[in-house]
């Protein structure tokens, strides 16, 4: 039995917005794998909840006319992983969400919850950063779009304003078309794990697969919120696909990341992982893109 003061069940997105306005203190619950745990721990004990679990309109994945992949915020990890559009166009995201917890957590956990709880370790977040995802946010004034890079305000804090809720995650065609990628999750065990560090790398190679036309490197748990390695990306974009480039990536990313010391892992260990994982993920991304690179 959870210590909940009251639950308001939204009947539609508009109703959810209305409930948000009426109960500004209430917490949105999408799946519960995060909120219910906080209630039980006492951090949210006695809270009011707005349940959006029943809003099937916020579930599902479709491709829009301009090629944008639209993922309803309530789509569960297991459904994202199994979705043919995801597998075809952004399989890295499918791989990443397939590393969340275990199967039952992936059945209840939603991509909206994973982004809106604002945690740096979210398995989907680094890959969404690596795809320049855009969040569709619905509020009393209607819909606004927010690039994921601007959504995170700090640990546990995201840019959701009065009356708003995140209704979809959008990935533009230009963000995925021609890119291949790899998400690596480092954990202390192989399942039921939150990331010690997560690294998602996307690459776009030249026609002859020799030159790195573009790359995007994104991290979870390499700072207070998920982040991109922009310094590294800018420095190596246009470089040759080679072990030397990879080694440069391994060195440069250390300027991009800022992990902290905690009992979960020491800072120097996380820095080492940021570097090693970027190189490993880069190698795999290049190979998926048809490039050749030695170990």
């Amino acid at each position, binding site marked *: 039995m959870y210590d909940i003061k009251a639950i308001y069940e939204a009947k539609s997105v508009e109703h959810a917005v209305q409930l948000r306005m009426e109960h500004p203190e209430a917490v949105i619950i999408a799946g519960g794998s995060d909120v219910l745990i906080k209630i039980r721990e*006492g951090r949210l*004990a006695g809270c009011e909840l707005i349940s959006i679990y029943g809003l099937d309109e916020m579930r599902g994945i479709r491709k829009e006319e301009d090629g944008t992949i639209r993922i309803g915020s309530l789509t569960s990890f297991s459904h994202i992983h199994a979705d043919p559009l995801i597998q075809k166009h952004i399989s890295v995201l499918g791989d990443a969400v397939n590393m969340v917890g275990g199967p039952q957590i992936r059945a209840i956990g939603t991509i909206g919850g994973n982004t809106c709880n604002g945690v740096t370790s979210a398995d989907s977040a680094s890959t969404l950063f690596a795809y320049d995802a855009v969040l569709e946010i619905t509020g009393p004034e209607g819909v606004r779009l927010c690039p994921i890079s601007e959504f995170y305000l700090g640990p546990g804090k995201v840019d959701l304003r009065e009356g708003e809720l995140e209704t979809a995650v959008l990935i533009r065609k230009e963000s995925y078309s021609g890119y291949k990628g790899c998400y690596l999750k*480092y954990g*202390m*065990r*192989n*399942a039921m794990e*939150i990331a010690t560090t997560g690294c998602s790398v996307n690459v776009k190679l030249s026609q002859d697969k020799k030159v790195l036309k573009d790359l995007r490197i994104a991290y979870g748990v390499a700072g207070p919120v998920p982040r991109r390695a922009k310094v590294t990306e800018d420095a190596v974009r246009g470089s040759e696909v080679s072990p030397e480039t990879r080694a440069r990536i391994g060195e440069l990313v250390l300027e991009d990341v800022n992990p902290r010391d905690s*009992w979960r892992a020491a800072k120097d260990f996380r820095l*080492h992982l940021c570097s090693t994982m970027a190189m490993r993920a880069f190698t795999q991304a290049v190979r998926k893109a048809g490039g050749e690179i030695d170990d």
Partner: protein
Amino acid sequence: MIIGKSIPRIDARDKATGRIRYTDDLCDKGALIAKIKHANVAHAYVKSVDTSEAEKIPGVVKVVTCFDVPDFRFPTAGHPWSTDPEHQDVCDRLLLTKHVRYYGDDVAAVVAEDEVAAARAVDAIKVEYEELPFVLDVQEAMKDGAPLLHEEYPNNVLRHTSMRKGNYEEAIKEPGLIKVEGWYDTPTVQHCHIENFICFASRENEKIVVVTSTQIPHIVRRVVGQALGIPWGQVRVIKPYIGGGFGNKQDVLYEPLCAYLSLQVGGRLVKLDCSREETFRNNRVRHAIRSHIVTYCRKDGTLVARKLECFSNQGAYASHGHAIAAKGAGAFPQLYPCENVEVDAWTVFTNRQVAGAMRSYGMAQADFAVESHSDDICRVIGMDPMEFRRKNLMPKGYVDAFSKNELYADTFNQCLDKGAAYIDYDRKFKEYQNQTGPIRRGIGFAPFWYNTAVWPIALETASCRMIVNQDGSIQVQVGDTEIGQGADTAFSQMAAETIGVPFDMVHILSCQDTDVTPFGTGAYASRQTYVTGFAIRDCAEHLKDRILDIAYRYTRMQPYLMDIQDGNIIRATDGRVLMSLGDLALQALYDTENSVHITMERTAQAKSNAYSFGCCFAEVEVDIPMCRVKLLNIINVHDCGRLINPALAAAQVEGGMSMGIGYALSEKMIYDEKTGKLLNGNLLDYKLSTFMDHPHLEAQFVENPEPTSAYGTKALGEPPVVPVAPAIRAAIRQATGVALNELPMDPHLLFRRFKEEHLI
């Protein structure tokens, strides 16, 4: 033959249908809920407790504090009691404490109508503390001036024992000896049975009845009596099916408090259900033990003199206390016999949570230290690790002076041969020498021995009652417990075999009720097939004699001419079936001249004991830049004597290996140095192995029936954990050349050590 057959466990069907009842499943929905107020400081005196806000919360029935509870000190260890005060467990517990000795200690409790009200009331209790300095490290706690936990124990030393053999100081003067020295550290880990601890209590007539998830119902009864200051006969303890124990439930946990709270609310039904976080923080853990070993040996690997010092972190209360360190220390001179040995073991209080019994009881720690050290010796003197073991391990015919235990077979060589053959050790060991590159493989192994049961250190007793039903089937009741390991199935096989009835004619009572089942101390020390086996055999033999005596009335054959086979009374001389056991039972009971209900009850005391042996081989792949170990292959080989049920025996080994893998590679409880608080007390942050963290687990056996045992058996439940960590350590070392002297060998440790060794 029923013994030696892989019969499915008797409770399997009910477990596969979800019909079996565990403690919570038996509790009435209307039970009041008890919750405990745990201290949020590591060491302090409670100055005051303000319960006024808590009492105002609707649904709260009762709040009690450390100032309310009776002053009856009690022990918690699941040890047999002793009538000699010198040998009794330390009585250092009260139901709630005014002297907080660890972060999470119990200072008050609430009884409420539902769990939300109880949780809110616990939060609303205000406790004022006089904080004291605290100490978490075992050796720091021994220093003069360290914070003192218990007045009666200067320097926090609960106990120190020494053992001397030969003359260490003289022996090391021999010229040309090579000295090898090492420190080996093991972590605090927990049992992680999936069913948390839970109990409920109510008064029925003049008795307090406690239903509890325990391994030791008869001991719980005694301790509840001690804690409440009431006659033990007024306590009735019922043990339903339990969702694992592994030693945690070989301690009396919150049964006394729950019984007390029930009596505080007029004997109403009160349930105390530990959350997972409470199970982590407020139940028991495995002792972290730091060991220091020095060996002087000759170039050929001959051991000349050896010394062990070990420091066992007891945490805040005595619980099982020194028994754990003493068990490991006692093993040291035996596994590798040596003429000159010094052993010192200390068990020391610290402001950490309480360490108690856990599967392998000190031997996992000892074997990690001793076998890591064996590998270190081989490295220093350049000797092959297999050759070193074959030369120095306890030989056939070895007799321990204290216990009189004997090694009756060439068991170590047999186990090592079997394990090496399965994993292709010789070839791989050669192939993996001197690798380079980021990803490397290694193979290693470690032997172990394990003492069955607790004789002669403590009493070993078990009793058994058998009742012949009208249909000739046999009811079997023992005080020793089924905790998931399959004991009741093995007991039933034993009973069926000795009496001479088919397996399905034995009905064992799987749930103990101290008002019904005869006395038994419970499931621990891997003792039951050995010790309870004596009681079952003795009871079954006597029952059989009684049956044949009664059969004489109806068959007119002398008892010595008859036998029982397959549920029938037969004439042994020609095998003729004289009557079925069912007919006999029916006739005897309803005999209008001389009605007899055929029963038997016997108590067996064990005054012997047995060594159990085996080894583990492990093959790993180490990803050096990623600081990761992947276990590729693993096998445990056990000589636990004769197998009663090979499938269940293998299942025990696999589960133990899994626990050993976690101990080796991932499990560790982490405490905040600044506050003493447990940081990772949940199943997400505590890294129990998942389905994806294991390769195939191979379990094999060497069967040398134990001559002293009623059914040829000896310890199996606990030993499988023991050799896994040192075997994996040896494999990692072969792969990387890096010696890891602490557990777990997780990525954090690998990162630190690989950096120190300049591998990354």
